[in-house]
Each structure stands twice: as C-alpha cells, then as structure tokens.
C-alpha cells in the first residue's frame, strides 16, 4: 500500500528491530558512498602525468664539449636548460656585484655547486612570462650584463643569470641537478 509505510506493525512493537533496520539502511547507503569514492580515485589519478612522462622527468647531459665562455642548451621536462661554462672574467663580474642591490638577492656561489662555480646551470625560461631568453646559443645577444636577454619584454640577466633589468621578478631558476662525474650532470 502506498501510504501505510509507517504502520508496519512488527516494527512499531519491536523498537530494537527498528534500530537494527535503520543501522543496516545507513550501512548500505554508506557502503554505496564508499564505493563511489573509491571509483573516483582512478578517474582523477588518470589525469596525472603518465609513466612515460614521468620516465623523462630526469635528464643526463654530457657537458664535456662546453669550453669556458661557451654555453649549450639541453632539454629537461620538455623545457630548455642553459648550461654555461663561465670564464674567470664572467665569474669575477658576477661576484663583484653588491648582492643587496639585486631584485632577487643571490650570490653566484648559491646558484652553482661547490667547486664548480664555473658551471652555471639554469632553466632557459624567463621568469617573467615564460619566453626563452637569448644568450646561450652561438652568436646570440647576451644583453648589457653579459648573461641572457629576453627579447619578449626586455628582461636582462647577468652572468649569474640573475635579473638585473626589465620586468622579470626573479632570477632564472636553477633546477635540481648533480654532477654524476666531472663531465656528466643529471638534472632532476
């Protein structure tokens, strides 16, 4: 009968029964909820980087060919990395700067590995809006501070790839890397 759901005599007399029944109904609905949540996990997880993408999350680069004063580009996580072998003069220029006067105060030593201060390894992505600065390729403009110059909006970086002029808020990012030998670095 449509409307006499409440007049179920057995249940009214037996209060214990009612409570037990409510419990089962609540448990069943909760189980459905738990199941629904469990299903959502793979549906969300599938959007995260897949195994083949993660496999390329670290890159090894052979830097034996890079002579002082030269630079090379490598690709790390589908983005350019600038690997630069600084000349003593460039190191000296970078160290001569008063760190306090910089927009993003960092010394060259903080941006390189101990004992390898000549190896300046930074992402080749301008921290302003993501363009690729010039200066790492052969014959490219290095800008007035001898580092990198981003032609999009005119950010100028010095020989430690620190922002000196223009709109970029921070220095070129230094990725996680380590020297696996004197001539090979592993980025990421």
């Amino acid at each position, binding site marked *: *009968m449509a409307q006499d759901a409440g007049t179920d*005599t057995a249940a009214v007399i037996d209060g214990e029964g009612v409570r037990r029944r409510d419990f*089962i*109904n609540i448990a*069943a609905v909760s189980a*459905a909820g*738990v199941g629904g949540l469990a299903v959502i996990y793979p549906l969300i997880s599938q959007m995260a980087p897949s195994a*083949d993408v993660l*496999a390329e999350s670290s890159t090894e680069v052979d830097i034996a060919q890079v002579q002082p004063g030269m630079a090379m580009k490598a690709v790390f996580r589908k983005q350019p990395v600038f690997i630069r072998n600084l000349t003593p003069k460039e190191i000296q220029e970078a160290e001569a700067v008063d760190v306090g006067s910089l927009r993003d105060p960092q010394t060259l030593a903080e941006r390189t590995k101990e004992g390898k201060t000549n190896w300046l390894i930074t992402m080749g992505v301008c921290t302003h809006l993501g363009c690729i600065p010039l200066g790492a390729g052969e014959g490219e403009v290095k800008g007035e501070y001898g580092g990198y110059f981003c032609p999009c909006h005119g950010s100028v970086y010095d020989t430690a790839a620190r922002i000196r002029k223009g709109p970029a808020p921070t220095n070129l990012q230094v990725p996680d890397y380590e020297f696996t030998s004197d001539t090979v670095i592993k980025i990421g």
Partner: protein
Amino acid sequence: MIRIFSILAGLFFAGALAWSLLWDTIGFAQEGLPKTVEKAFYEHPKELHLASDGWFGKFDKKQVKRGFEVYQQVCASCHSLKHVSFRDLAALEYSEAEIKELAAAATVNAPDPLTGEMKDRPGLPADHFPPVVYAGQGHPPDLSLLAKARHDGAAYTYSLLTGYQAQPAELLKQFPDAKTPEGLHYNPYFPNLNLAMPAPLTSDGQVTYSDGTNATIDQMAKDVSAFLVWTAEPKLDKRHQVGFWWLGFLIYATILGYLAYRNVWAGKKH
C-alpha cells in the same frame, strides 16, 4: 491491413531464405562437410600452466626474466618489442644501472630535442625497444602483444616453439597437394600448418640463463611464453590485486544493499 502486409513481407524474407537454403542443402548433400588439411591436422595448443594464470595469478618474475633473456639471445634478432620500454624492465627486478646499460646498448633513432632532426643515439631507459630491421623476406611480427593477439596466447607460443616436426606421412597420403612449400616449415600448432619462421629453439643450452637454470628447449619455450604474457599485459598483477579487493568490497556492499532492500520492503507483498 498492416497484418496482411506483414505476412506478405514475412513470406518474402522466408522465401528468399528458403531459396538459399535449398541450393545450399543441395551443395551440402553433394560435398558434405568441408574437409581441409587444416581441419584434419591442426592441433590445439598444449597445456601450459604459468604463475600468471587464473584469478589469483601473479607473474613469476624469475621466469619472466629468464624469458627476457631468451628473447634477447634468440628472438630479438628478427622480432621487435616496440610497446615495451627499457624502464619497464624494472618490474623484472633489473636495477636502474642494469636498465641504463641495456638501453644504452641499443641504438635509437629519435628527433634531436634541440633541432628536431632525426638522429641515432644510444637508448635511454625512457625509450621503447627500437624497431628490428629484418634482412630476410617477410615481416616477423612485433612480439609485444603476441600473447593477446593469439587464441590461448601463452600456450600457443609454447606449443609452436616446441611443435616443429616433419610433415606426417599420413597427411601427404590424405592431401597429396598439401606438401609444405619450399622455405616454409611444418608445425601443426600454426593455423595453416606451414610457417616461414624456422624453429628458433634448436638445442639445449642455446641460451645462457643468468640464474643458472638448465636451458632445455622446453624450459626456454616456457620461459619466453611467460615473458610474452608479461609484455602483452604488464599490469596483470595490479589488475588482479585491485580486482580482488574491489570484488570483496562489492560483495560486502551488495549484501548490505540486499538487506536494506529487505528492510524497506518488509511487510509489503509483491
């Protein structure tokens, strides 16, 4: 009115079918069941039991690893494995350094990331197994999915690898035209009985196993079959594991759901 049309339409289709049936029956009466050499001499795959079989199956990693060694030392000269990456070998308990070494031994033709130009370079763990250039005639199939691309995949490869034999005299007596053509090899486990690939596993000890297992032909065939199940379905372990827990939960939830249904309907006849 519609029913008259419908009966006419029904008779139209039935008539056309009866016409086909009539001629096919006459043909059947004259020729009988089709009799071909494949029907008479094809053999279903031998039984093969692998650790990955069944609903609770898990790969026997040691065996799969041995199978990979068979692939490397025997199959790899003709057959590619393009859907598998070197990094996948981590699942066979290869260390990072070993994988790097295996990958570097391969030459991969890939676009240079800086210039976009296609270049040969040593392989990286992230690379897939490179294509294999086969010098002879024909196209040896890629093996990555073979175990799923054949009925009863693992048992099929195992039977095929151990099933090479001389053509039975009985076959030639019954089907004199069915002599194995020049350059093909008789194997009753191959659907049309003759295949281009010569027996790849020919002698015991052909493969050197790193774990010292005695490499009999039977052992090698089993191991490489187990390996091909892995290359075709690398997520099998995870699938069984997730499925087991999920199914357990579903049974629990369904029983609760049924009890709740009984509650709701208590006292209601239907």
